[in-house]
């Protein structure tokens, strides 16, 4: 698996992940949720935003089952999904704990946390 290096902008996200909490930027000025973290809110360009805890609930906008991961350290097959969180933001993640036949576009999911050699990752399970 690839290791990653958080920036000043994203360090808090990963610190919280290590504590089992999923957070996302919320704009203090316009209320927009956004992801990935940016210096300014992409909706109103305000620099007044803070990380807030997410419910961790959402649905699968789309997914693809990867049968040839980039290297052998990844599990295979791997269900990569574009998750729409209920607060109105999106992130890439994995669907775990089920067979691909049980995954549908639109399936409700919730976040859980798994430890890998490269670090702790937020992953999702079908409700």
């Amino acid at each position, binding site marked *: 698996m690839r290791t990653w*290096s958080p920036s000043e902008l994203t360090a808090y996200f990963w610190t919280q992940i290590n504590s089992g909490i999923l957070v996302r930027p919320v704009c203090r000025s316009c209320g927009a949720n956004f*992801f990935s973290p940016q210096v300014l809110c992409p909706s109103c360009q305000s620099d007044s935003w803070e990380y807030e805890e997410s419910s961790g609930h959402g649905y699968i906008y789309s*997914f*693809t*089952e*990867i049968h040839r991961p980039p290297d052998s350290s990844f599990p295979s097959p791997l269900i*990569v999904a*574009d998750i729409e969180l209920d607060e109105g933001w*999106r992130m890439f993640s994995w669907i775990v704990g089920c067979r691909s036949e049980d995954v549908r*576009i639109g399936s409700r999911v919730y976040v859980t946390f798994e430890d890998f050699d490269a670090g702790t990752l937020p992953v999702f399970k079908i409700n």
Partner: protein
Amino acid sequence: MSFNAAVVGVGMTKQAKSLDHSNISISIEALNLALTDAGMDIEDVDGICARWPGPGGTTFDPGVVDWSGILGTSFRWVGDTYPQGVPGVLDAAAAVSTGLCEVAVVFGGQAGVLGEGNLAGYTRPDNEFVAPWGLFTAAHFGLIANVYFERFRPDRDKLSQVAATIRNAGAKNPDAVMYGRGPYSPSDITNSPLICEPFHLLDLCLATEGASAVVITSIERSQDCPKLPVRILGGSSEWHRQQYVDPPRYDEVASLGKDAFQRTFGMAGLSPDEIDVYELYDINTWEVVRQFETMGLCEEGEGTDFIHENGIGKDQNFPTNTDGGLLSFSHTGWGGPTLKIVEAVRQIRGTAGCSQVAGAETALITGAGSGAQYFNTAILGASR
């Protein structure tokens, strides 16, 4: 609005799975082939659009200026656009049309980087919210295509026929990396290993080595060149979001290219069905189908049926990716998009050999795609 610009030289090196060259040496080989084709030498060149691949040089922008030292010349115009191919050609055409330079070269490629089993680095974007999930470029396209599949349920056999047709063109082309590999039936495509849903191995483009180059000058000066000048009749780009960072969504990028197509056809005074040769960015099979829909040849969701009814082979209604495309001919990374310009020029000149579409006078070229969240297109035509 129109460009006062024509392609007067093209160059293409050998294309292969790996080449014993450097990025720089293979790129210069293609450049020299194109200059010879144009009846020019490096002293004639005063504009350049070519990503500097290193090693050496500087991290200062524009990196393209690093070419000045190794080529021993200076420039009036540099285009640092990425990638080359359509955006590079359009920028160069604009620079030539406005007099910022008289002769512009667009070139690039890769070599010595894809040895045994090495993945092409550009297919694995390095971002902390992408890389940990094992995503690669084909998977970004898969996320979009799966929504299309869910909504429109395209016939898998007909979709596989798209890949088979393009690959079978490459199988007959001695210059293609996959020359002699084929012919393929639709079931060969569908039965090849599943890489990431809905894409099987043979749905996906190559990662290969080689380089290509084009020389562009004004229409007036093009008359002095030895080969038939090929005019740049129109072109446009759409830059939706940075590629391969945040998840691309079908509902946001399904129609990516629609505006660029309309503007491009408008500039050229042509309609989508009046093109003789279609050199579409076939990064995967489905993206070809999406472009037929976005171009306006058929409705959303009807692309596989439309292609099945009309055909995209050399002698059918919509000859597409005549050289074998990115699926079978070659895909050389940042320089890959330029390969399609070279094939389009050869088609219009009537020098495309076994790939030649009889009487071709116009060619449509596209680059990038929905999963990349940007798109570009141009139309080239015979100068008569």
